[in-house]
């Protein structure tokens, strides 16, 4: 088992090395680790921005499929005060082997938070009472409006929803 971990780490570091070699601009994968109490303020209205919070995990295939859409929205609408936050539900023991390499490979630039809080029965209903906990799921909110979506998005569908919150 120890050897397996070492090999996994070796693979990870090898791939990140080669990545750096190809692209000198690649920065280290940055993200913060929060429990639910720490995450809570992130999900609450605070200013005039429109927030899109996407709940995802590297092991969730439909999440990975829609992730580029959230990156594009971040790239195209940051100037319109739209803020994208990616909340990962990866297991804490997969940070090194899964999450870090993924953030680097996809060159994710929105803010990434790893929610490390094992008591799902407490925090899932606090995010939305209707949420079964399935991924992907997305929260959109402004000062005046809030909606939760337990579904995958196409870019068109996401923009359609976003227009209900802010002028694009």
């Amino acid at each position, binding site marked *: 088992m120890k050897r397996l971990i070492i090999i996994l780490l070796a*693979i990870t570091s090898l791939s990140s090395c080669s990545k750096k070699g190809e692209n000198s601009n690649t920065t280290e994968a940055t993200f913060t680790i929060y429990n639910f109490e720490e995450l809570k303020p992130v999900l609450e209205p605070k200013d005039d921005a429109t927030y899109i919070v996407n709940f995802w995990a590297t092991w969730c*295939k439909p999440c990975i499929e829609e992730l580029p859409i959230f990156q594009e929205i971040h790239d195209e609408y940051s100037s319109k005060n739209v803020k994208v936050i990616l909340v990962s539900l990866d297991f804490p023991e997969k940070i090194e082997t899964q999450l870090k390499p993924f953030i680097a490979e996809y060159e994710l630039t929105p803010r990434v938070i790893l929610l490390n809080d094992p008591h799902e029965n407490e925090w899932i*209903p606090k995010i939305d009472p209707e949420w079964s906990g399935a991924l992907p799921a997305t929260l959109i909110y402004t000062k005046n409006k809030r909606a939760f979506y337990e579904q995958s998005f196409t870019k068109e569908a996401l923009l359609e929803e976003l227009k209900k919150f802010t002028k694009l």
Partner: protein
Amino acid sequence: MKYLKLSLFVLIVVTAFAFTVNHTSKNSTSNSYKIGDIAKDFLLKNIDEKMVSMADYKDAKGFILIFTCNTCPYSVANEDRIIALDKKYKDKGYPVIAINPNNPKTQPGDSFELMQQRAKDKGFTFPYLLDEGQHVYPTYGATKTPHVFILQKETEGLKVKYIGAIDDSSRNPATVKVKYVENAVDALLAAKSVEITETRAIGCSIKT
């Protein structure tokens, strides 16, 4: 090289894993069993190729029925806890029966052969059945892996006594505060009513 192959396999299994919301599971939620309903028996193939139904267990007082699979990280995180439940409650009359509800065509890591392999590697002490044709999980209204249904044998049939998660810390056994399933079975064994009868099952959506 052997380790490299193994680690690649682990990586593939982990990354190939998918988590989807689907209409079947959403629809089945409304038809799902509620506490006090009489659960239907099934006849499904076990990893030892034998067909298993709950009617085979003449001496059982009830069952800890768990929909689970090979590939979901939450299922994997709960394997040792499921084995412990079976060891603790089998002799007391509440054996574990595990059912893999996923479609192996959608989720190749949950094929019958890989179920056999996983059960052998982990030393499962309970039947691990494949829901071939995926008829059983919708009847129960299971939506996740792992998703637990505790049934008690009564005169009218197998009555649903608890639906939900194994405990309050699905991903990490070290941070468990409340053991929902143990508390429920302990209550049933003591002829008391179950205090917490329903919790949110935390895990992966069933793959159709």
